[in-house]
């Protein structure tokens, strides 16, 4: 090897060694002690950084979990029970029981049921159209169809249906982070308790007007007639401000309310078809003779 090459190798190696030593000491001097458990917990969190827990990113949530005495009020909606249980195991704490939830739109006002009475021509943003006027229909509570919820969803779980103008929620992709709930200026989206086989039963209306104007604006509006309330045996239904509400935690999915509702405001999803009524009278007559 020529002397130039040798000198080059030696000098660069010395430089590298010096830099390594200096950087090592600097790193030690300015080191911030971090509980190693924070890294452990962060590793089992979903790394979606969606903010559904209320913290700015999964690392902040991991820090909060490590620092907290108990997991009261700390839930990762994306990871759900498996992740919370694992975190509890790592930290030696108890994870509260969480009911998985899913986002549901409390409005069914497609053009078929809720006729359009004007045409909105401003910026395509629900917050803007909501503060401007009641919307393209006569219902001042219903969905404005401008897609703020779709834009807020980071999990590709919510898409505006072009025909109905309402957001369609994909139950498999929805992680219940709550971004769409915050985004809707009319507070139409709710996180409801998930049931087996993705069954849902809910009042698909948020209209607080009296029955007359509500029905005039939309054929499937809740008119606050209280028939559902009277028939529910489980105290799951409350009526407030001319609007019925089904508590998803108390509901047993018996579907009696849906049958009673005169305007079909209550929606039932993913249930088997109802058995048709059996012809009882003819048989009884036969048996008498």
């Amino acid at each position, binding site marked *: 090897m020529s002397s130039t090459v040798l000198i080059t190798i030696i000098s660069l190696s010395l430089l590298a060694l010096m830099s390594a030593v200096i950087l090592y000491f600097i790193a030690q001097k300015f080191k911030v002690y971090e509980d190693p458990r924070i890294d452990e917990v962060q590793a089992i969190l979903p790394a979606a950084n969606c903010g559904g827990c209320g913290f700015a990113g999964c690392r902040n949530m991991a820090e909060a979990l490590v620092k907290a005495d108990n997991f009261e009020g700390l839930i990762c909606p994306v990871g759900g029970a498996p992740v919370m249980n694992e975190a509890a195991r790592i930290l030696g704490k108890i994870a509260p029981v969480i009911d998985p939830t899913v986002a549901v739109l409390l409005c069914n006002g497609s053009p078929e049921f809720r006729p359009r009475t004007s045409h909105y*021509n*401003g910026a395509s943003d629900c917050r*803007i159209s909501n*503060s401007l*006027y*009641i*919307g393209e229909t*006569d219902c*001042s509570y219903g969905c404005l169809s401008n897609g703020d919820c779709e834009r807020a969803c980071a999990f590709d779980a919510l898409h505006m249906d072009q025909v109905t103008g309402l957001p369609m929620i994909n139950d498999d992709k929805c992680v219940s982070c709550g971004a769409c709930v915050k985004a809707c200026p009319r507070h139409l989206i709710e996180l409801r308790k998930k049931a087996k086989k993705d069954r849902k039963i809910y009042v698909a209306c948020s209209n607080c007007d009296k029955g007359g104007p509500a029905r005039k604006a939309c054929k499937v509006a809740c008119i606050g007639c209280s028939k559902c309330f009277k028939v529910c045996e489980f105290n799951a239904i409350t009526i407030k401000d001319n609007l019925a509400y089904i508590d998803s935690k108390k509901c047993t999915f018996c579907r009696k309310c849906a049958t009673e509702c005169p305007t079909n405001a209550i929606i039932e999803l993913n249930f088997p078809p109802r058995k048709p009524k059996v012809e009882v009278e003819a048989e009884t007559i036969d048996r008498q003779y």
Partner: protein
Amino acid sequence: MLKTFPIGGVHPPENKLTATIPIEYLPVPESAIIFVSQHIGSPSVPVVNKGDSVKTGQVIATGKGFVSANIHSSVSGKVNRIDFATDSSGYKQTAVFIDVEGDEWIDTIDRTKGISRDVKLSPDEIIKRCFDSGIVGLGGATFPSHVKLTVPTGKRCEVLIINGVECEPYLTSDHRLMMERGEEILTGVTILMKALKVKKAMIGVEKNKPDAIVHLTKLASSFEGITVHPLKVKYPQGAEKQLIKALIHREVPSGRLPLDVGAVVHNVGTAFAVYEAVQKNKPLFERVVTVTGKSLSKPGNYMVRIGTSLIKLIEAAGGLPNDTGKIINGGPMMGKAVSNTEVPVIKGMSGVIIVPGKESVREEIKPCIRCAKCVSACPLNLEPYLLMALSEKGLFERVEKERITDCMECGSCSFTCPANRPLLDYIRLGKSSVIKMARERNLK
């Protein structure tokens, strides 16, 4: 060189179709719906009940607190109910519904013809009369006038500025008032000068109303301390801060009031209402509304009772044309589009514009080309492209630093943008979010 404001401004086509049409009095309607909140400040409290008989000019709702205004019945008849009614946005507000019978006025109103120029009331009595008569700013802002006339201790009013600019296209109600009721307006100005204890009043009128300038200048020669100033035609010359800058070359500091530079501004329509309130004891229950539009058969300037349905106004103008695409309450730059025609006339309704279909739809939005025309157009030297971008992304803390709350929503930026971007839509969103955020911060 005509006076004007130096920064920003745009030149929308004037379309003053009704500038030469004299004011026509519309007949009393068959029913009236009178909102209890037609002004900035606390909504008024109804003082009548279902079944009560009311007379024209009678108080039906009293102002609550200092920044509020009385509401008077514009008709005589029976109160049908006090209930919710939809305003021009479709949302519901409390209103007094009156079934009209005849047109009997309260006997305290002086109905004699003839102009009385002798102002007998003291300044404090004038301010009280303005409050009692429900006078609010009739330029469209509807700010209670007695509040503007009450100068707080420590501040001083040096000059009264009267806004006869009417810079919005299409609107001509102020123009016609100046032509037909000039002497009453100038007497009203004298009353306001007395209330504010100033010796100087300056009336600003845009150059596109030469007949009004000539007429008022001639009348002003017989009044003390009132001068008329022609101004260059540029939108928004009628904005308070721009008018003050053009006439007395002072800039109202950000977040402060005109009184901080020694000025108080009132609209000519308000001056006329003050004249009627002080000299004739007539409260505010009717106003001139310009009903205009290229397809209307009988556009004009109509004196109409508050609470009359918009449908009646449109009928008087010849009926709603078949090609109507949009109905605007106010001017085309700052007015509100109406979603249903059954809204009643309110104190702040200066005009109704019927827009034909093809002109009523916005063009397609294109990407921002960073041409900075919005920056040159903004009369307050803000940066609309930045305010929109930050508001759209929800960066409200940053947009607050960019002075978004200074924005007066004049619309010059959206008007100018070559890419048809909805700048003002998002700026409004940003403004309301910043105000909400600041309020929550102050509560902590």
